[in-house]
Structure formats: structure tokens, C-alpha cells
């Protein structure tokens, strides 16, 4: 502060000390005029005096002009800025005042209130203030200070000392000196007539106390509220605006009305008295209209009627920003608004899964086709695709055949041809649309894929599959290189060689490796339906059979020479999904990937399951019986299953789109076998066979 003042002083000229005040000399001959040449002739001196007068007047004029300039240019603007900047402080203070008012069920006159309250209020208020103090001499210095505070009101109005409301006035406390922090005790100690309390002293027996006040003071606020709400059905709101009868404050009526006022007043939007936070004041609060001009200022505090001390509307002194007819901030006949906690899907409550950064609609599932709809949920589709890819990769799995990524323009590498794009939507970035790269030789797809960025998924998919280096994988470019799925699943470390440090979930990667380890055991045939052939848009129906895993077809790396890409080098069959995958497909009863992540090494992200399914699996919900019976995925062509191979079945037909959309973008993004498992019913041939052209327009 000192430095600030010094800085200010440097900028401003120092204030000259005032000259001594001119005192006219009684004797004119003793008048001394400074600057006057006393040796000059008289006329000259007169002339000089006139000139001195003129000069002095000029100085005066200049000074006044300077004052005016400083006032208009610096002081008044600063004061206005101060007023504006301190407005939030006042709002907050007003909020807290209303908070205490509501807590104590009393009315604390504020600046606005004083403009509306009658002046006769002040005298009676002072009487009310003094009574509690006199009745509670054993109070702490709070009482004394409350008096001081009440006296501090420079406005001349008697301020209802808010501290009074916190002075416990229960008879028990008074008689026994006990302290009760219930604010309501004080409110019930007051009444309009004050006949019962004014003469009371702490030594008075408790029997003289108002029983209703006692009961009201000790009753639970919830009880009061409940009682009030019950009486709300009977009471008329307009009638409740009337001041409570001082003679017999009935808790039901008075309490109900006051509670009603409380409840309704709380719903006045923007009102500082109804705000729940001092930080929320964005509009001028709606001042209640219930203050009446003839309010005598006496608040019947025996009944819990906090804020409605008057009934008549005082339009002149209140401004209503709400302009509501009932004065409660609500349109007539409208019930108080209730904050409803709308039900939210709890699917994810117990199944924490890797949540993709982007919805699945822009993820892997879209890789199969460019016709997917961003708004759609591709989870089912993606699940199916992933499942199929995994199954196919396992079935076809050969050593060293990881998921090879088809280069750009080689859609048939894995037997998938990008379907014609008719409804191409915004494609995900390379990371998410990794699967897309397998099947989509369309440059446009790649471009679209690059438009959406899910870097984590790209890193995940490729690294998980151990297919490519990070440079290749992470670049959201048109480089359509299918991942070598096998490496990802192998987990034997080979994948890591190709893996990058992109943002792939470490746990998921580990699971991928575990799944890959199991690939050597011989893959189960994953029933791949033709869901992939369908439209790539993430429709619910398309995801019915979609396996969880995307790009499981990458597992189906052909043994032919087509797989010349950087497939897995781990000797694992490209289609081998890995131990975790197999376990998940075959044995997992719980389709919660997270649950099984540590146990079975299943893909944690492949939790695209359907809650409704009775037998959720890694690949989705499919009954165990169905699985065991060898029933393939729905819609899977019979010729899909490779001959001689154990059938892997993906039972994710009933994966919900929601699940997929929410959680499985990353999983879907895992292009296991270069086969876009998303996109619905895609017929994945047993080998990375050519695309049958029935895709969904990748």
C-alpha cells in the first residue's frame, strides 16, 4: 500500500500547503498587499492592486475549472467503476443475508426492504429487539453486540438485528441457562403483539412460554416442512400471504403458509434469496411482492413464516423481474418447479471399461465403410466385427501371420473390399478408423478417416497387434496398412517391437498379448456373420451380430502370399486372438471385460456386451448353450467357417449399440485381423479372402 501511494504521488504533483487564510485588517492602513510596490504612487498602486485582483480571479477560475475537470474525468468514473465492481460483493452479501433469513425464518430488512417498509416499522422493530435482549441477560456478549449492531444503523430505521435470531430463547434455555442453537427458538419467541414475551424474564417459569413456540422450536425442520406441505393442499396460497395471527399461531396454518412461501420463494429464479450459491446471480432478483405498505413491522415469529410479513403488494417499492402473477415467481397455477434427476443409464455403473475418446461412430466401425453415420452407435457392429476378425484370425492363424495391413488401394488383401460408400459420414481418424484401412482402398475413406482423430485407438490397435511402427500407425494419413494382428495378440514381445508408444492402454495391450499367446493353441472358429457386409453406419441392427472386436478379420490373414505386409512376426497364426480372447469367447460367462481382464487376460476393452443378454461373453451376449451348440453368429454364412477348424463363435449379436458407442471405440479400434469387424453383418471368409463385395460401403 505504501508503495502504491508513493507511485501515485509520483504521478501527481505534490499538494501545496494552503496559504494562511486572509484576515481582513481592521485598520486599512495596515493592509499589506503582497507584490504591491508601496513606493509607487497611489494610482499606480491602485492599478497594481486591480491587476493583482484580476490575476487572483483568473487563478480562482482556473482552479475551479481544474476541479471540475478532475471530478468529471477521474473521480466520478472511478466511483462508478467502484460501484460496478463491488456489485458482486453486494450480491453475495445479499445472498447470505437471505440465507440467514431462511435459516432463522426471520426477515432481515435489507436495502431494498427499507425502501418499501413503513417507517412505523422501525420503532416496533426496536422494541422487538430490545425485548429478547432484556429477556436474556445471561446471554453472552452476543446480545450486547447485537444491540450495538442494531444501533449502528445509520439509516435511522430500526434494523432487525439478525443476530437476535440466533439468540436462543427457548424456555428451557432461559430457565436453565442452557443454550440452544436452534434459530427457530427466537422466531417463536416473537409475536406481533409481544404481549406474552415482552414481559417475560428469564426467571419466568417455562409455563408462561408459548407452547407452540416451544414445540416449534424443538421440532424437526423436516416435521415442520412435512406439516406445511400437508397443509398446502388445503391452504390457499393467497390466504397464506396474510400475516399470521398473533393470537394463536397454529403451526399447521402458519407453518404451512410460511413453508409454502419458503418453498415457492425458493423457486423464484435469480432471486438472491433463493439462490443456492452466492456465485449465482445473473439477473436481478425478483423481489417479492408481498410487502405491504401498512406493515407494522412486527413479525410474528412464533409461527414459521419467514419471509411473508406482508400481504399487499407494494408495487412502488418492489421491482419484479419475474412479473409473475402470484408473486412467487411462478405462473399462476404452476407448481413449483422440481429438479428432477432424470434416470441415466446405469450400464456403465459396474462395468468400467476403457472409454474411447470418441464415440464409436467415428471409430473403428466406420473403417469398414464410409457410409457410417456419426450419430449412430456402432458398438454392436464393432463388436461383431471384432469378434469375427478374431475368430477368423484364429482359424486361419498361421505362424508369423499377424494382422497385415493392406496397403492403400489393396482392399482385397484380406478378402475385404470396401463397400461402396453411399452415406459416407465423417470418418474417424486413422487411429480409430484403423479397421477401415484394411478394407478401404478408397482414398477418400482414408482421408475421411484421417479427419477424425482417435490417436489412442490407432496406437492401440496397431501396437496391440504389433503390426507396424508407430510412425506408420500414428500418422493420420492415407497410409492404409493393416495391422498385424497376430503380433498384438502374441504378446510375446514381438508386437512390442513394432508397437509404438502411442496412447494405448497398457492393460489392454497386455491383454491383447495374452490373447495372442493363446492363439497358438488353435483358434476357435469365430463365427463371422455377414454383418460386415452391411452398411457401415452404426445402426443398432447392424451391430446385432457384430463381434466385439474390430478387425478381427485381420486374424484371418491368408496363408497365401497376400499377406506381405508387416504381419506379426511372432509365428502366431494371424488369426489367433490370443488366450484372453479365446477364453473370453469360449468360457467367459461374464461379458464384463474389465472383470475378466485380470483373470483371463481377456481384452478389457472388449466389453461390448449387452446387458440384456443372459450370457454375456467377451464378444457379446450369447447364451452358453448357443455357443456350445456350435451355433454360429447370426447371419454367418455357412461357408464362412473354415473347414477342419474348430469353430470359434462370437456371440455378440446382441450387443447394444449403446455399449459399443460408449466404451468400445478403443476395442473396436483394435484391428485384430485387418478385418473390419464392425459394420454389421459382414461375411468374413475363412481366409483373408477377397471381399465379397457386400460390405457396407467402406
Amino acid at each position, binding site marked *: 500500500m505504501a508503495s502504491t501511494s508513493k507511485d501515485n504521488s509520483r504521478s501527481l504533483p505534490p499538494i501545496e500547503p494552503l496559504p494562511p487564510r486572509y484576515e481582513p485588517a481592521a485598520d486599512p492602513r495596515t493592509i499589506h498587499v503582497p507584490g504591491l510596490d508601496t513606493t509607487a504612487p497611489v494610482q499606480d498602486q491602485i*492599478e497594481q492592486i*486591480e*491587476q493583482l*485582483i*484580476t490575476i487572483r*480571479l*483568473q487563478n*480562482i*477560475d482556473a482552479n*475551479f*475549472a481544474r*476541479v*471540475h475537470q478532475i*471530478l*468529471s474525468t477521474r*473521480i*466520478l468514473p472511478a*466511483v*462508478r467503476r*467502484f*460501484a460496478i465492481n*463491488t*456489485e458482486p*460483493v*453486494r450480491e*453475495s*452479501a*445479499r445472498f*447470505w*443475508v437471505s440465507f*440467514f433469513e431462511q435459516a432463522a425464518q426471520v426477515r*432481515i430488512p*435489507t*436495502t431494498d426492504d427499507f425502501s418499501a417498509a413503513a417507517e412505523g416499522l422501525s420503532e416496533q422493530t426496536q422494541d422487538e429487539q430490545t425485548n429478547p435482549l432484556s429477556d436474556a441477560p445471561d446471554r*453472552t*456478549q*452476543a446480545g450486547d*453486540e*447485537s444491540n450495538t*449492531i442494531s444501533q*449502528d444503523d445509520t*439509516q435511522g430505521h430500526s*434494523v432487525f*438485528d*439478525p*443476530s437476535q435470531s*440466533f*439468540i436462543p430463547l427457548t424456555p428451557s434455555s432461559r430457565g436453565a441457562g*442452557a*443454550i440452544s*442453537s436452534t434459530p427457530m427458538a427466537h422466531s417463536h419467541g416473537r409475536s406481533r403483539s409481544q404481549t406474552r414475551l415482552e414481559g417475560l424474564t428469564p426467571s419466568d417459569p417455562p409455563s408462561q412460554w408459548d407452547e407452540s413456540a416451544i414445540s416449534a422450536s424443538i421440532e424437526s425442520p423436516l416435521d415442520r416442512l412435512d406439516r406445511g406441505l400437508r397443509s398446502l393442499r388445503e391452504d390457499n396460497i393467497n390466504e397464506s400471504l396474510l400475516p399470521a395471527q398473533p393470537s394463536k399461531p397454529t403451526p399447521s396454518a402458519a407453518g404451512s403458509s410460511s413453508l409454502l412461501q419458503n418453498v415457492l420463494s425458493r423457486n423464484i429464479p435469480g432471486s438472491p434469496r433463493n439462490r443456492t450459491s452466492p456465485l449465482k446471480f445473473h439477473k436481478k432478483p425478483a423481489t417479492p411482492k408481498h410487502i405491504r405498505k401498512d406493515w407494522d413491522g412486527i413479525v410474528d415469529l412464533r409461527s414459521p413464516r419467514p419471509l411473508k410479513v406482508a400481504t399487499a403488494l407494494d408495487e412502488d417499492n418492489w421491482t419484479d423481474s419475474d412479473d409473475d402473477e402470484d408473486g412467487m415467481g411462478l405462473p399462476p397455477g404452476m407448481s413449483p418447479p422440481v429438479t428432477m434427476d432424470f434416470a441415466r443409464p446405469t450400464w456403465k455403473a459396474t462395468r468400467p471399461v476403457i472409454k474411447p475418446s470418441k464415440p464409436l461412430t467415428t471409430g473403428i466401425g466406420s473403417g469398414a465403410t464410409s457410409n457410417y453415420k456419426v450419430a449412430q452407435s456402432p458398438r454392436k457392429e464393432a463388436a461383431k466385427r471384432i469378434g469375427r476378425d478374431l475368430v477368423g484370425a484364429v482359424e486361419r492363424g498361421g505362424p508369423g501371420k499377424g494382422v497385415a495391413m493392406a496397403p492403400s488401394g489393396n482392399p482385397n488383401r484380406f478378402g475385404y473390399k470396401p463397400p461402396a460408400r453411399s452415406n459416407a459420414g465423417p470418418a474417424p481418424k486413422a487411429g480409430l478408423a484403423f479397421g477401415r484401412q484394411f478394407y478401404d482402398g478408397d482414398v477418400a475413406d482414408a482421408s475421411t478417416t484421417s479427419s477424425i482423430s482417435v490417436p489412442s485407438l490407432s496406437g492401440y490397435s496397431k501396437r496391440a497387434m504389433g503390426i507396424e511402427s508407430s510412425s506408420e500407425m500414428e500418422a493420420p494419413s492415407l497410409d492404409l496398412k493393416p495391422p498385424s494382428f497376430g503380433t498384438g495378440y502374441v504378446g510375446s514381445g514381438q508386437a512390442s517391437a513394432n508397437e509404438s508408444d502411442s496412447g494405448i492402454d497398457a492393460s489392454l495391450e497386455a491383454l491383447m498379448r495374452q490373447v495372442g499367446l493363446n492363439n497358438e493353441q488353435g483358434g476357435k472358429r469365430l463365427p463371422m456373420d455377414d454383418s460386415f457386409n452391411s452398411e457401415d453406419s452404426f445402426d443398432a441392427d447392424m451391430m446385432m451380430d457384430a463381434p466385439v472386436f474390430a478387425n478381427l478379420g485381420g486374424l484371418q490373414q491368408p496363408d497365401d502370399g497376400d499377406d506381405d505386409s508387416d504381419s506379426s512376426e511372432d509365428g502366431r497364426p494371424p488369426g489367433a486372438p490370443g488366450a484372453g480372447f479365446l477364453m473370453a469367447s469360449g468360457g467367459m460367462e461374464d461379458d464384463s471385460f474389465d472383470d475378466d481382464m485380470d483373470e483371463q487376460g481377456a481384452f478389457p476393452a472388449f466389453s461390448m456386451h449387452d446387458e440384456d443378454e443372459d450370457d454375456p461373453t467377451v464378444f457379446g451376449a450369447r447364451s452358453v448353450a448357443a455357443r456350445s451348440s456350435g451355433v454360429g453368429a447370426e447371419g454367418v454364412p455357412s461357408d464362412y467357417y473354415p473347414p477342419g477348424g474348430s469353430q470359434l463363435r462370437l456371440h455378440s449379436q446382441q450387443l447394444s449399440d449403446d455399449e459399443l458407442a460408449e466404451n468400445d471405440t478403443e476395442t473396436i479400434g483394435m484391428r485384430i485381423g485387418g478385418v473390419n469387424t464392425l459394420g454389421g453383418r459382414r461375411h468374413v471368409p475363412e481366409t483373408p479372402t477377397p471381399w465379397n463385395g457386400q460390405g457396407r460401403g467402406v
Partner: protein
Amino acid sequence: MENPHAERQAVLLARIVKNVEKCTEMFEELNHSLEEITRADRDVRTAASLVTKYRKNVQYNLDATGVRKAT
């Protein structure tokens, strides 16, 4: 002939009066603004007193009930 000084001085006085009137208006506006600010700050003062008293009562209650040892 009028005293030239008088004319000059009359003009100066007129200017002085005009400036003073302006300054008076400015001061009136300033006072009004400050009065409004002060009046609005009453709520702040009230809130401060409320909080202070409440805290005092709470402290007393805690001390009286033995929850918090009075130091």
C-alpha cells in the same frame, strides 16, 4: 469609461461562477453515487454481522457442549 479591470474581473467572476456551478453538480453527483454505494454496502455489513454473530454463537455452543474445548 469603465474600469477595464472591472470588466476583466467581471468576466472572470462569471467564469468562476460557472465553474463553481459545474463543480457543485459534480459533487452532488459524487455524493449521490457514494450514498448509493454506502447504502448498498449495508447488506454487506449486515451479512458480516450475521456471520460474525453466528460464528460467535457456534463457538459458544461448541464450548458449552464440550465439543470443543474452550481455550
